[in-house]
């Protein structure tokens, strides 16, 4: 047996190899096909654009090029006697001056964060003759990356391929065994019982049909071919694992059904709002923004809620308010466990409205809210208070009104915002009146009161102001060049002390932080009535742009539509850049030129680009240095702006030791951004330079 196994093993190895090659070949072909399709669709797009341009050009009248007598004629003679020599007058075209080289780039008016690239996307082109040092450079470069795009599967056996390989080989083996059998009978080689055993084993395998595990032979062969992938047993286990999830029912996507669609389900508030909450960037006001990879969820934000007020006026003749005066009692009766995180603040200012007891109730409610939604956040399914089945039963029992899943979900969503203002909720739901809403609410035991109003007038303002100046000064003194990226802090258990990330990175807390509005580390904004362009303005002094939500007197929060703002310290956020033009530089390559004259210290443009990590910048910088052209700009200790692939026209401004512009990293509403300002008065049409160092 051993003797027969040896050539067998070799055969299996060969088989593994050829199968593997075949699979890889298939994969490659598939990939090539994909690339081809992409290429074709790109070509189509380009052709579309070209046709548009061509149509435009066709509209232009073209003046024929005059014959110049001095140029003479051009004669083409043919070797065949039948053809006469062709002569035509030469029309010389005047030379068109060339222009500098440019790699294509995408326009951008705001920084764009990209992730680190662990795979080298392309091997940089170093010219036609690659010098030896270039080769060394490339090798070193590739070492910096996990791999090069495209050759991921080279010598590498992915799970997918592994699975396919095993499957292919197992089919192979069935077929093969029969052949082998015949061959062996012909050769008279094997004993009968061996055959029987074999056959029976095959039958067993056949019986187990789809769920069978291929023979060890295959795994042994694979293991010997790819020793680094593990032993036979390991491979077998892995195969089983790989097989498992495929056979299992796929987990339902964490996708809430569309509330506007026909399959809307009755779900909890958190689930309905989950997508909106998690994807919304509170800093950019956008969903899944380009700049901030992590978005804080809203539940931790304290609600201003002062606006929430009980509606006391009935909304109409059928209003539930006319029927029920017992709501309060109901609410009081609804017993739930209460946890209190915070000590109730001394309400120094008289809170108008509800009584003390109601207040406590509200407090409890908001607490509950917080906990439940944080649970929702962590994606543990909030236990539904009422299972839909029960709900239906009850509905059938006591009311005639049918509630759809969407309506129920919507009610729960709105209840979290409007509380007991059922009239408003009914109006927003649209399809139910407030009486029906009330009845449903009763069922859900969810009649709540308005949560506690956040009271507290700030008594320590004066003190803070003094501290602010000291703080700015301190930051200026010891930070030297250490500027760290700002990340909103979130530590609900303690105030912003030395353990707060904002304090540690010497950043002020911003409005995006989860800390109190009265946090000591918050920047209070300025109260300037002038232009905020001197160090008199605390914002200017702290190298911050005025915050339109903090600085209410300088004009940073007004005139949204006009380009004339009294505050001169909000140009970057408003994008009040100057019109720039692109032309071949007087110094090198391309240059940036200004269209209109500017005053000294006026904002010219923001240096925009991709926001990359320092590590990524190191990797990219190596290549850029080799090309002798770099658009990297250090933003802070954590990030670098790279305008190579994405940017704006200011990226073409050249370096000069005697420049007319300067760059300044400014904190703009929580983001560090690079502003380019005029170092002196600049005339129209001047080329812009700044000191790169």
């Amino acid at each position, binding site marked *: 047996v051993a003797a027969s196994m040896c050539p067998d093993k070799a055969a299996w190895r060969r088989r593994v190899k050829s199968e593997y090659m075949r699979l890889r070949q298939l994969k490659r072909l598939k990939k090539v096909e994909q690339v081809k399709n992409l290429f074709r669709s790109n070509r189509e797009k380009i052709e579309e654009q070209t046709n548009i341009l061509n149509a435009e050009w066709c509209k232009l009248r073209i003046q024929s090029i005059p014959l110049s007598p001095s140029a003479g004629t051009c004669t083409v003679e043919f070797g065949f006697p039948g053809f006469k020599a062709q002569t035509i007058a030469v029309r010389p075209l005047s030379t068109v001056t060339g222009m500098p080289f440019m790699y294509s780039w995408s326009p951008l*008016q705001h920084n764009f964060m990209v992730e680190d690239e662990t795979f080298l996307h392309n091997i940089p082109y170093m010219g036609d003759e690659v010098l030896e040092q270039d080769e060394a450079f490339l090798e070193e470069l590739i070492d910096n990356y996990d791999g090069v795009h495209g050759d991921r599967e080279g010598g590498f056996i992915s799970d997918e391929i592994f699975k396919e390989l095993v499957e292919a080989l197992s089919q192979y083996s069935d077929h093969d065994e029969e052949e082998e059998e015949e061959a062996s009978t012909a050769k008279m080689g094997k004993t009968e019982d061996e055959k029987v055993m074999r056959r029976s084993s095959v039958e067993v395998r056949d019986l187990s049909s789809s769920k069978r595990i291929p023979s060890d032979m295959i795994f042994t062969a694979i293991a010997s071919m790819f020793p680094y992938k593990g032993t036979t047993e390991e491979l077998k286990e892995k195969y089983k694992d790989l097989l498992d999830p495929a056979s299992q029912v796929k987990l339902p996507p964490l996708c809430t059904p569309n509330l506007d669609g026909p399959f809307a389900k009755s779900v909890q508030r958190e689930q309905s709002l989950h997508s909106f909450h*998690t*994807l919304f960037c509170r800093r950019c006001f956008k969903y899944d923004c380009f700049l901030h990879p992590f978005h804080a969820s809203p539940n931790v934000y304290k609600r201003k809620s002062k606006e929430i007020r009980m509606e006391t006026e009935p909304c109409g003749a059928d209003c539930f308010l006319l029927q029920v005066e017992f709501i309060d009692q109901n609410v009081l009766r609804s017993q739930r466990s209460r946890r209190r995180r915070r000590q109730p603040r001394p309400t120094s200012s008289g809170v108008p409205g509800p009584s003390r007891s109601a207040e406590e109730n509200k407090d409890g409610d908001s607490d509950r809210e917080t906990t439940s939604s944080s649970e929702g956040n962590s994606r543990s399914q909030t236990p539904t208070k009422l299972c839909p089945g029960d709900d239906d039963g009850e509905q059938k029992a006591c009311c005639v009104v049918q509630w759809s899943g969407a309506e129920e979900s919507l009610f729960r969503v709105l209840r979290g915002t409007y509380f007991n203002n059922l009239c408003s909720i009914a109006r927003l739901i649209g399809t139910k009146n407030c009486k029906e809403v009330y009845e449903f609410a009763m069922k859900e035991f969810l009649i709540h009161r308005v949560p506690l109003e956040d009271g507290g007038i700030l008594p320590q303002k004066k003190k803070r102001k003094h501290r602010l100046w000291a703080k700015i000064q301190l930051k200026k003194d010891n930070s030297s060049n250490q500027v760290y990226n700002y990340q909103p802090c979130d530590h609900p258990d303690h105030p912003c002390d030395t353990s707060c990330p904002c304090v540690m990175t010497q950043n002020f807390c911003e409005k995006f932080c989860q800390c109190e509005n009265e946090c000591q580390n918050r920047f209070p904004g300025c109260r300037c009535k002038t232009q905020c362009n001197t160090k008199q303005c605390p914002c200017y002094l702290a190298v911050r742009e005025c915050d339109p939500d903090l600085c209410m007197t300088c004009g940073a929060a007004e005139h*949204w539509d006009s380009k004339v703002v009294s505050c001169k310290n909000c140009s970057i*956020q408003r994008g009040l850049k100057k019109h720039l*033009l*692109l032309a071949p530089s007087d110094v090198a390559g391309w240059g940036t030129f200004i269209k209109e004259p500017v005053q000294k210290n006026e904002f010219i443009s923001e240096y925009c680009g991709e926001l990359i990590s320092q590590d990524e910048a190191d990797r990219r910088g190596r290549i850029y240095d080799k090309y002798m052209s770099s658009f990297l700009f250090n933003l802070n200790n954590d990030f670098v702006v790279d305008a190579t692939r994405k940017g704006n026209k200011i990226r073409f401004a050249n370096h000069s030791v005697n420049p007319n512009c300067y760059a300044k990293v400014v904190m703009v509403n929580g983001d560090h951004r690079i502003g380019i300002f005029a170092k002196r008065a600049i005339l*129209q049409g001047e080329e812009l330079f700044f000191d790169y160092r």
Partner: protein
Amino acid sequence: MPSARNSGHTMSGASCKANGAVYPASPAMMNSVKKPKMEQIQADHELFLQAFEKPTQIYRFLRTRNLIAPIFLHRTLTFMSHRNGRSNAKRKAFKVDDMLQMVEKMKAEQESPSLCSHLQLTFTGFFLKDEKPSSNSENEQSSVSLEVLLVKVCHKKRKDVSCPIKQVPTGKKQVPLNPESNQTKPGSYPSLLVSSNEFEPSNSHMVKSYSLLFRVSRTGRRELNGLVNGVANENIDVVDAPSRKKRSSSHKDEAEGTETYVAQMTVFDKNRLQLLDGEYEVSMQGIDDGPVSKKRATWETLLDGKRLPPFETFSQGPTLQFTLRWTADTSGKSLAPVAKPLSTRNSESCGPMETRTSHHRTALMTVKESVSTDIQTKKEQASCEPRQKLRIFYQFLYNNNTRQQTEARDDLHCPWCTLNCSKLYSLLKHLKLSHSRFIFNYVPHTKGARIDVSINECYDGSYVGNPQDIHSQPGFAFSRNGPVKRTAVTHILVCRPKRIKPSLSEFLESEDGELEQQRTYVSGHNRLYFHSDSCMPLRPQEMDVDSEDERDPEWLREKTATQLDEFTDVNEGEKEVMKLWNLHVMNHGFIADNQMNQAIMLFVESQGAHIVRRNLCRNFLLHLVSMHDFNLVSTATIDRAMVQLQQIQQDLPEPEMEQSDQTLASAGACNGSTLLLSVGKQGKRTKCGLTD
């Protein structure tokens, strides 16, 4: 007519040697170098010539261009004001009608300039330098006898061997000898009138040319004295007698010791007027023995048997000065202006005769004028320049070595464009301003001035024309349809700088070598710009469009949509509202929390109809509630937004029918296929991944 004359000092870099006196550069250095280095020196010299050749050629070309199509007139420049002969005095009294009169008058004059007028000659004096006037100036006679003959050369007839010549005497006058310009009164100069009738075609002979023959006789004192008395009173009038040729051919003065000088000037040649109004100084030739036969006559200037350079005769030899006028009235002798001893060089060179006036005195005097205004010591040095001649040495420097020195005598013409600057100051100013490819430094010199010429390395030769021309595609020059905006390449400059008094010191080489601050008078877009996306030339009409005004370039709008599409756990309704909202925010660029209420209302306004049509109202409500959860909007805004949305819903045309269809369709599109799509699409991301 005043045409551009080649001054003889016009210089082209390569042919420098040919003009003027050439001195070998720094002979001491040359000697010290050994022979093997000669080649190197030659090569160096070649480089020097090359360096100067190009700008010189450019300026020669520009000179011609400016003559044909001048961009400006030199006389309008402040430092060339002396070239402007007119004053603006007449402007006040000017009437438009006068123009017609003037033109008519001019036409009348042009039609018969010669026929209706007389030729008036007023003689200033006869100059003979080789005598010593100082020794016996008091009692010596101070005049010579002058006879003027009109010589008519007729066309050859068949039998004639030579051209028939008729000489018509026009008169005799006593002309003062070596007069001093300020002594005699203007009215007292002798003058002669030649009737225009003389120039009319006469009898059978076709006259080919008319010329004036001047014959000056200078006798001994007494004889001359008598003659002076005799002839002065005689005042022979022009005799209309073509037949009296015998008499005219004979010499009148046979007295012993008589010296005779003759000169001839052509008045008409082949019906072309050669002598214009002006002041003339004629160089005369002495005749020793009797009349000179015309055949032997040559016009070389001889003095003491030696050849002299052509202009030397004017300072030395006998010359006759007179003023020539074509005048209508015969009586107005006194009106004839007197020839001043100095005149400009613009006078014509007439026929074969040299009739140049010497002008070096002019130059000197003007230099004195300009210099006298100056206070600086160096100027005073300059003022000590020799009065006789102003020599200008152009010293060509290359690599800080003098390579060549070219001398221009009595010449204040610009060597590159032959412009007569008349003054040294003007010349220097002109050189500096008009020929900025070179650097000119003025160095005072004992004999005049030295100008160091070197190549201006800092010359900005950038193209100052229309930048569009550089890149305009061939054949597209006239491809525009209708009016097109163009880049302005000319500018109106109103600059009133403080004028410093003209002084030669401004041309001296500055000691510290500090360059005069080059203030750009014209700033502007004198270059061709390109589109940043396509690298296509930016046309002037596209100048005002800033491609960066777009906050949300198309690719970014597409990107935000694809990014959201990648989520597998976000449903289609949510995605659609999010995309709409993102585009809305990107379009408006909201930056403040307190803008959000307004932003929501704007959103409803612009996208409300779309939201209703796509059946996204509840998702939109979720979005609003979410915004409220983030503390960004108030419930009042939610209420208002939803009310407005409901309003839009009601106002939509045929809402029910269409909407039911649309609802189904859109529901099918974005809801019914939710599962299919989210599975089918290769979603790469989940929202949960973001929060970790």
